[in-house]
């Protein structure tokens, strides 16, 4: 186990390094210069542009810039946002404080929905319930996340808050009212997120349940006298959950797209809205920082998924 862990951590670190380098290259091959936007102030001159380039080290060669970049990253410096004149790292931490609870709650909802509907569809395979549930899952999964968000906004206007993370007029009300206010605002975005992504969990769980039902040990469990429900709970479900957990953990990284769109629809002040604003304002350091953050999140999630599968299923030990 220790040897496997070392190998996997090593592989992950190499991937992290490749991602960091890609991030650097991506923002260096863009047309124009990083300072062409800053230097567009009234009364600027070529001298000003040169001065800014020198200050940010952009007049050095690319390999020197790369070395500087790595050094700064090691100190946690992701650059300074053009639009907010503040360190990108600090802004991203604030944004994450909003994104993580919303996405976390939505993800749990999606897992729950997927579990319930997957078991239901497999248990009643071939009946109307199965086709209805499966097609509903596919339909929700096939709907674009922003479409679901807009639909839910239309349905719940007036009933639930549909924009922002809190009521600005309720800022000083006290601890529990503030928590309740935040929770109310988080309800719709998390619900949208859960609805947008649960479909794949339903289908994967249904498929793996049906496959487990075809295994020999299930037949044995039944033949040795277990009641159907006991066989389902003790023998079928735990084994069927393995590919389900695998897919769930792997897909964590690619849930980014849905989260980003939903945040824009609900004006949720998280990483997605930050990316949207950075794009609109051409705030390249912010874009670079967010891209790095999201890609590293995917790498970490894949690593976590690998470890989870190893722990849950010793048969994958090679």
């Amino acid at each position, binding site marked *: 186990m220790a040897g496997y862990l070392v190998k996997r951590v090593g592989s992950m670190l190499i991937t992290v390094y490749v991602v960091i380098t890609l991030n650097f290259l991506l923002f260096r091959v863009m047309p124009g210069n990083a300072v062409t936007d800053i230097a567009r102030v009234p009364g600027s001159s070529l001298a000003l542009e040169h001065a800014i380039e020198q200050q940010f080290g952009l007049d050095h060669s690319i390999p020197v810039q790369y070395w500087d970049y790595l050094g700064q990253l090691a100190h946690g410096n992701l650059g300074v946002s053009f639009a907010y004149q503040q360190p990108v790292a600090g802004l991203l931490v604030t944004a994450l404080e909003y994104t993580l609870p919303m996405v976390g709650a939505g993800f749990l909802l999606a897992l729950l929905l997927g579990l319930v509907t997957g078991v239901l569809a497999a248990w009643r395979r071939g009946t109307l319930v199965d086709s209805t549930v499966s097609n509903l899952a596919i339909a929700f999964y096939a709907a674009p996340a922003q*479409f679901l968000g807009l*639909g839910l906004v*239309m349905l719940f206007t007036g009933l639930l808050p549909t924009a922002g993370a809190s009521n600005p007029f309720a800022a000083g009300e006290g601890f529990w009212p503030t928590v309740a206010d935040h929770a109310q605002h988080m309800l719709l975005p998390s619900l949208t997120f859960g609805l947008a992504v649960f479909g*794949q969990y339903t289908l994967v769980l249904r498929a793996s349940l049906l496959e487990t039902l075809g295994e020999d040990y*299930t037949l044995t469990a039944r033949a040795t006298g277990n009641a159907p429900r006991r066989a389902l709970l003790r023998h079928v479900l735990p084994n069927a959950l393995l590919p389900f957990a695998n897919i769930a953990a792997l897909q964590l990284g*690619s849930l980014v797209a849905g989260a980003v769109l939903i945040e824009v629809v609900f004006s949720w002040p998280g990483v997605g809205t930050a990316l949207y604003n950075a794009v609109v304002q051409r705030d390249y350091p912010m874009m670079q920082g967010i891209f790095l953050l999201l890609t590293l999140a995917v790498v970490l999630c894949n690593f976590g998924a690998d470890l989870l599968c190893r722990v849950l299923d010793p048969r994958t030990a090679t």
Partner: protein
Amino acid sequence: MIAPGAEAITTPAPPAGPAGRARLRRALRALRRNPRAAAGIVILLAVAIVAIDPHLFMPYQAGQQVGPVYGSPSLSHPFGLDDAGHDVLSETLLGTQATAVIAVTSALIAVGIGAAVGIAAGYAGGWVDLVLMRLTDYVLVIPVLPLAIVAAALFGAGLVNLILVIGLLLWTTTARAVRAQVMSLRSRVFVRRVRSLGASHLRIVLRHILPQLAPLLVAMAAIDLAVAIFTQSALAFFGLGNPSQITWGIMIWFAFERTALVVGAWWAFVAPGLAIMLVAMSGYWVGQAIEDALNPRLRVRHLAPRSFRVALAGGAAVGTAPAGTAAATDGGVTEGGR
């Protein structure tokens, strides 16, 4: 040494003459058993026909104001009017063309690159395989939408850029699936026989391996189509589409940007959203049906879920586990998600 008889059974004949017609009959029978795949194919064909010349199907002219801004749905305008008084249904049909062009081209590029990489890795093996698979792993790890957004923001949001970005990100799942199948095909006896007759590697790949890959490539293309549409609509929603070219994603963005929500004009985004949903579902159904047909495990006996009696898995199931599909995955999407 594998018994030649066993190999002869498992090596499918290339489609030609009676063998080809038998395959066609089997494919049609499989379609009848799987109504979802049939519906999916019909929907995709309908979208393709509309995309060729939308003006034949549009009830009103493009860009023609036929009523008040955000007029409600009525009998003559089943999906209402948008922010400029245009008929939403006509706009949606018009948008089919640009959406289809972007999605199909991106899917073709993705499948093309994926097939090339997969065949090279699976057939050559050795260090070529190692290098290509490492490359695939690194590209796979990059989330599609953020990179697409960054690339569009950096390099401009033109049509070509859009197609390139989506195509260059979606090839990885195809590459992996193709590599797996090519590796299993390469070790088949018929390849060794043809090689011993003096066939070059290129001839083996083109004449013997590629036809076997065709169903898998079609399945991957269908799924990549859905993810391409998701990603394109997500990019449009970020303001990174081309506003002068109507696509379904642009229409949803217009609805959001141009205060349809404030006015309560839900119809402004329902039509394009439903269109994307239908195409994505059809792509998924078709891709899944092909994967099911290729997957021999469906013929394993299942225990009937409630009674736990042994029962055959009847026909094609609603859907097996998506083999590395995205979200969208898109979308999700793109996924899917992926």
